[in-house]
C-alpha cells in the first residue's frame, strides 16, 4: 500500500439549484455538501455517518461522479491511473466507472424486475465491454456470484424470487463484477433484517480483504459503522464535523453532535432507560442553514461566538479532526466532572 490516498477531496461542495424562487435575484440553492476535505486511504473501510439531510449520500454520489461537483478538487489515484474527477473527460469517465461502483440501499429498487439475475450481474460487463465473449461473461458472473455466496442455479431466476438479503448479495455481485477498486456502499444494510444484516456486513468485509477494495460505507447506524469501519467521518448539514479512527471516535468523541448521536442509540439494557443525553429539535433545512456553526441551534454548549463564526475542521490529533470552537474546553470540563 502506498501512502497516497485513493480518494482525496479538497473543499468539495455540491449545490443543487432549487426550482422557483424569485424572478429576480439569486436562485435558492441547497448546499448538500459544503467544503468537505477527506482522504480515503487505499484498502480502508471508510465510514460516513449522519442523519437524513446530512449530505452523506450526495457526497458518495459526487465521488462517483453521479452528482455534479460545484466546487473543489477530487483526486483519484489507484496506482495505475490518476483522475482529476471534476475535470474528467468522457473516455476517462468510462474507465473510472469500471473502477468505482455503488451498492444501493434498497435491494428491491436497485434490481430491474425484468432481467434475470444473470443478466443483472452481467450488465456492467456488457455495457463496459470488459469481456469478449458470452462464455467469458458467464465465467465472470459465476465467479463473482460464488464469491457473494449466491446459488449458481438461481442465476436463471428473476429478482422477485429472492428475499432482501439475497437481493442485496445480488446487488453486491453486480457492483463488484467489473473488479472495481473503490466501492461506495450507501446504507447498504439499512433495509435488511437484523439477522441478515450481520451476514451482509461480514460478506463485505470478507470481499474487501479478498479483493483489496477500498470502501466508503455510508450509514446512519453508528453501531454498524463501529463494527466494520476503520475510520469514521461524521457529517451534519453538509459539513464534516468530526473525523477519526473508529476506536478513537467511539471511545472519546469530541464534537457535541457526535456525543449526542452516540447517546441516542437505544441501549439493549432495560435498566439504562432515560440516561441518554437528549438532543432537542431537528436538523435545519439545508436551503436555509443557520449562521455560524451549523449545529448551534441544537447544541447545549452554543455561545455567541458559535452563532456567528463557523468553526473549521481542525486537526486535533494525528488522525483526529473536529470542527467545534469549544471542544477542548468541553473535554476538560468533562474530565473534571468525572474525576
Amino acid at each position, binding site marked *: 500500500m502506498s501512502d497516497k490516498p485513493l480518494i482525496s477531496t479538497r473543499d468539495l461542495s455540491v449545490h443543487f439549484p432549487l426550482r422557483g424562487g424569485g424572478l429576480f435575484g439569486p436562485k435558492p440553492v441547497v448546499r448538500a455538501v459544503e467544503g468537505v476535505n477527506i482522504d480515503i486511504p487505499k484498502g480502508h473501510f471508510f465510514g460516513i455517518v449522519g442523519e437524513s439531510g446530512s449530505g452523506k449520500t450526495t457526497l458518495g454520489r459526487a465521488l*462517483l461522479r*453521479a452528482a455534479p461537483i460545484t466546487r473543489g478538487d477530487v483526486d483519484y489515484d489507484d496506482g495505475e491511473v490518476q483522475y482529476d474527477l471534476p475535470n474528467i473527460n468522457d473516455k476517462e*469517465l*468510462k474507465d473510472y*466507472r*469500471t473502477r468505482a*461502483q*455503488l451498492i*444501493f440501499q*434498497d435491494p428491491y*429498487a*436497485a*434490481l*430491474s*424486475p*425484468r*432481467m*434475470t439475475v444473470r443478466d443483472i450481474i452481467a*450488465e*456492467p460487463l456488457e*455495457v*463496459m465491454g470488459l469481456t469478449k465473449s458470452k462464455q467469458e461473461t458467464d465465467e465472470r458472473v459465476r465467479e463473482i456470484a460464488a464469491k457473494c455466496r449466491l446459488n449458481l442455479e*438461481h442465476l*436463471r*431466476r*428473476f429478482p*422477485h*424470487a429472492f428475499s432482501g438479503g439475497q437481493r442485496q448479495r445480488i*446487488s453486491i455481485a*453486480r457492483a463488484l463484477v*467489473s473488479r472495481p477498486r473503490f466501492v461506495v456502499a450507501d446504507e447498504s444494510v439499512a433495509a435488511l433484517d437484523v439477522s441478515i444484516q450481520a451476514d451482509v456486513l461480514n460478506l463485505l468485509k470478507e470481499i474487501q480483504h479478498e479483493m483489496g477494495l477500498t470502501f466508503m460505507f455510508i450509514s446512519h447506524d453508528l453501531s454498524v459503522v463501529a463494527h466494520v469501519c476503520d475510520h469514521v467521518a461524521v457529517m451534519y448539514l453538509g459539513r464534516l464535523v468530526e473525523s477519526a479512527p473508529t476506536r478513537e471516535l467511539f471511545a472519546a468523541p469530541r464534537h457535541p453532535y457526535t456525543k449526542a448521536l452516540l447517546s441516542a442509540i437505544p441501549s439493549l439494557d432495560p435498566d439504562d432507560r432515560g440516561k441518554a443525553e437528549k438532543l432537542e429539535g431537528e436538523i435545519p433545512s439545508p436551503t436555509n442553514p443557520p449562521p455560524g456553526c451549523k449545529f448551534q441551534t441544537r447544541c447545549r454548549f452554543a455561545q455567541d461566538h458559535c452563532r456567528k463564526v463557523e468553526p473549521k475542521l481542525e486537526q486535533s490529533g494525528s488522525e483526529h479532526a473536529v470542527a467545534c470552537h469549544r471542544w477542548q474546553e468541553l473535554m476538560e470540563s468533562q474530565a473534571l466532572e468525572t474525576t
Partner: protein
Amino acid sequence: MTDTTAINANADQGLKEAYFTAGQGQLIWTRFKKQKAAMVGVMVLVVLILSGLFAPFLTPYTPTIAGRDSGYQNGAPQIPKFWDENGFSARPFIYTPSRERSAATNFRWVTTVDRDARRYMTFFPKGDKYKLFGISGSRHLFGVDEGKIHLFGTDGGGKDIFSRTFHAINTSLAVGTIGVFIAFFMALIIGGISGYYGGWIDSILQMITDAVRTIPAIPLFMALSAFIPIEWSAEARFLFISMILGFIGWPTLARRVRTHLLTERNQEYVLAAQLCGASPSHIIRKHLLPSFTSYIIVDLVISFPYMVLSETALSFIGLGLKDPVNSLGVMLQSVTSADVLLNYQWYFIPVIFFITLVLAFVFVGDGLRDAADPYGDTKK
C-alpha cells in the same frame, strides 16, 4: 393446520422454480388467466376479430349494392330449419318469400312466405367474387340452392344485413387499429421525448399536448368532415377518419407514457445502469421500454373501444363513413328512423355485435390492467 402447511411447503418444486424463473410477462399472463370475465372477453374478441377478417368468406354476399337482393327489400331474417309440418330434412332449409303490392295490400309491399317451396342450404357454394388477403375467391361458407338467404334479414336496398354486419366489424376494427397506431406512435415519440429529457422540452411538449386536449372533439369532427371533398372515394374517407381519430387520441396516451417514464427514469436500477456507463440508448432499450410495454399494451387495448366508439359516433351523426361503406357506425345510423323501430327490428342485430365488441375490449383491457398492475391488487 400444520398438515396443510407441511403439504404447502412440500408442494411441487418444479412449479415453484417455474414461478421463480417466470418473467414479468409470464406473471401477468398467470394473473390474467385467473380472471373469468377477461378470459371470456378474449375468446369473444378472438371470434369477432376472426369473423371480421374472414367476413368475405363467412358471409354469403357482397355487402354493397352489387350483392343486393332486389326481390327481398326490408326483408325479415330467415331462420334455417330442419323440420316443419311438411317433414324432416337433414339439410337445413328456408322458405321462398314472395312480395306483392296491390290494391288488396293497400299498395304496400307485403311479403308472404311459401312454406311449400323450400330452399335448401348449401355449403361452400360459388357466389360473389371477393378478395381475401390478396387471394381472390368466390366460395362462401354457406348459401342456398335457389335465390338468396338472409339470416339477419335485409335493409331497404335489399342488402344482406348478415353480410354487412361482418364486413362492418372488419371496417370498424381497421379504423380503430389505424387510429390507435397513429395515436400510439405519436404518444410514444412525444411522451417519450418529454419524459426522458424533461426540463424545458417537457414543458413545451406538455403545453402542446394540453392544447390538443382542449380541442372539443365534435366541432372539430364537424369542421373536418365539411372539409372532406364529396368526390373522395369511400377508401380515402375511411383513411382520413382513421387519421383524425389517431390525431385526436394521442394526448392521453402521451401523458401516460411521459408520467411512466418520469417515474421509471428515477428508479435506482436505472441509476445503477448509468453508473456502469450505459448510454441513453442502452437504458431506453434495456430498461425503460421493457418497463412499460405491459402498460402500453393495456393502454392500447383500453383505448381501442374508444376509437371504435368515436368512429361509430362520427358515422352515426353522419360525419364519418357513408352508407356504401359498411361500418358499425353506419349500421347504427340506419336504426334511427321510427319506421325501423316499428317495422324492421332486425336492423338492431348489428347493434348487439357492436355492444359485444366494445364490452369484450373493455373486459380484456380491465383484466390486463389488473394483471399488469400489482398495486391495484386488493390481495396484497
